[in-house]
């Protein structure tokens, strides 16, 4: 397993040493506003998130469902800029929790790939998760990430062929992001039966930890996913906790804390299915 001092691999390794999956929490920077997003991320860390994903709000988020899109839109309308995202990363990373940026590609390309990598590293960021950038379209990012020791988290999907899973995991650093359902982000009543087979296929190609995202919103679901995955990734449910209290940040933060604790409890009570990496 590779990774820099601030990389996500260390957090996954710590969780694994405790016999559990890591809890990965997502929130868009600038939602509900820049200062509020920093408070929210600190709350998530305090209540049990092991890794943070900070969304870079984007005008055309193809992979996001209505909950996250609305939050990103609110952030954009509030004036959140790429440089604000880096400020939020810096504040979140000060907690000592590995902090990655989840971003569509165009804002990074526009900022300048090398410049973005340098500034992200300077801010203490751990790396990038790139929902619309696959490794075969990412030579510039791979080079910049390697130069700055940043995590490269690419996605695998239930529709990915075994060859593409292998190609993708070979390009990843930190962890691999497995999208558990064929669909966009959003909390779901039940988790997908596509997730466990995908995790198993992914584990067969890499010793990197595999996080499962899209759909988890309760501790019980986290326990279920945590039984076979190395990380449980939660986004829409965190966003919704804040959206449910639109004009009352303290109440939103309280809801966020309660939810995080529930999810953190879930990954801790999961009955782990042995999923030792094939090449560990």
């Amino acid at each position, binding site marked *: 397993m590779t990774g820099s001092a601030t990389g996500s691999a260390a957090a996954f390794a710590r969780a694994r040493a405790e016999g559990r999956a890591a809890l990965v929490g997502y929130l868009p920077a600038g939602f509900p506003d820049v200062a509020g997003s920093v408070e929210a991320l600190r709350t998530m860390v305090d209540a049990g998130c092991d890794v943070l994903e900070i969304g870079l709000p984007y005008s055309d*988020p*193809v992979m996001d469902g209505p909950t996250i899109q609305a939050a990103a839109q609110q952030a954009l309308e509030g004036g959140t800029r790429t440089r604000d995202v880096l400020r939020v990363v810096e504040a979140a990373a000060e907690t000592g929790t590995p902090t990655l940026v989840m971003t569509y*590609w165009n804002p990074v390309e526009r*900022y300048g790939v090398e410049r973005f990598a340098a500034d992200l590293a300077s801010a203490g960021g751990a790396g990038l998760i790139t929902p*619309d950038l696959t490794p075969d379209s990412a030579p510039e990012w791979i080079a910049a990430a390697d130069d700055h020791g940043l995590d490269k988290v690419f996605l695998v999907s239930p529709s990915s062929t075994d060859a593409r899973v292998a190609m993708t995991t070979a390009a990843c650093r930190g962890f691999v992001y497995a999208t558990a359902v064929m669909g966009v982000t959003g909390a779901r009543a039940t988790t997908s039966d596509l997730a466990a087979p995908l995790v198993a296929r992914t584990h067969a190609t890499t010793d990197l930890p595999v996080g499962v995202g899209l759909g988890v919103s309760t501790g019980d679901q986290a326990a279920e996913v945590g039984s076979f995955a190395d990380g449980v990734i939660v986004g829409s449910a965190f966003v919704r906790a804040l959206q449910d209290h639109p004009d009352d940040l303290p109440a939103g933060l309280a809801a966020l804390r309660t939810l995080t604790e529930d999810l953190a409890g879930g990954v801790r009570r999961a009955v782990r299915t042995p999923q030792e990496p094939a090449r560990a």
Partner: protein
Amino acid sequence: MTQVAPGPAGPTAPAARGRFDADERGYFGDPALGWGGRFMPEALVAALDELTDAWHDAMADPGFVAEFEAVLRDYAGLPSPLYHAERLSRQVGARILLKREDLNHTGAHKIRNVLGQALLTKRMGKTRVIAETGAGQHGVASATAAAYFGLDCTVYMGAVDTRRQALNVARMHLLGAKVVAVESGSATLKDAINEALRDWVASVDHTAYLFGTAAGPHPFPSMVRDFTRGIGDEARAQCLEQYGVLPDAVAACVGGGSNAIGLFAAFLDDEDVEVWGFEAGGDGVDTPRHAATIVGGSSGVLHGARTFVLQDDDGQTRESHSISAGLDYPGVGPQHAHLAATGRATYEPVTDAEAMEAMALLSRTEGIIPAIETAHAVAGAIRVATRLAAEKGPDATVLISLSGRGDKDMGTAIEWFGLGQPDAAEGRP
């Protein structure tokens, strides 16, 4: 006009890869610059690979090509005529030829693309199609093709566009399609594309995405061009047959750029033929209200391809504006980006006012009411023709893709020109 020997010009004959075509990964031109490509979620890669393989197989299958040609001929009414607009020509001082795509079934060039993609959908064994639409013309064409082939159809349309193109929404309903009004973002075409892509991520096992223009991730830019290149192949052959020479220039409007690339594709190797694309200049490219992506945008990634994009300093897509919903798109097909970058084609903006003036001019000189999209091409082509006439005299020839008819735009025309009231006794001037 340029003297050349007739070339091969079957309306849908698959062409060998030329110097302006994409490589196998969908990149046009210098791989380091990389116009096009595939910037898409991994969840869609398998579907895009499947589509690429199916499209290659189909275009190499004489049976598929013959079936496509038959449905274009027998159902869509193709080939469309090449018409010499004599009264307009006299006014301009050069020969203006109109490729009459407005006479196609459903009233625009769009029917070529959707019949090709729907036929491919059947071949792939899928039962449902989705589409996005701006002006509604692609939505109507998709609903039509779905009805013809017996496919379920859902069309995503920005809520703003559903209001300004209510007639086309009604047409889609009558044809049996479901129309989903998209309220997110700017509630226009780009947001309809986002929503259609989201649907596709969740439904790729049984659903094909009938992409409406020559943009998006590989293979859509090349595939849509192949399905629409009959415009240019037919026009080239008709021009040679009717006049024995090629035109001095060809012209088309460019939003995403499907009719334009369909026309241009046949002429790119004819070095003496000028190639002109006219973008929606809106209130002017020096204002924030336009959709002139090549002239007023910059390199970026949108909807799965690297191309010219209207964007701010942070890479957020800027809202576009055009009086024509069909051109109101902040991106453009990546092959156009490549043609612009290489200089093989020239792109200029045409303002809302110039387009509406051209709409009225063509209506009154030729009795042809063009779509407002198409009126942009007419306005720009008149500029080109006026210059060429000064250089070469009245035999100078400009061939315009008359991509669509204006019925759907009458509401806009009524408002713009103040039409619809009886004239006074002395009549309208």
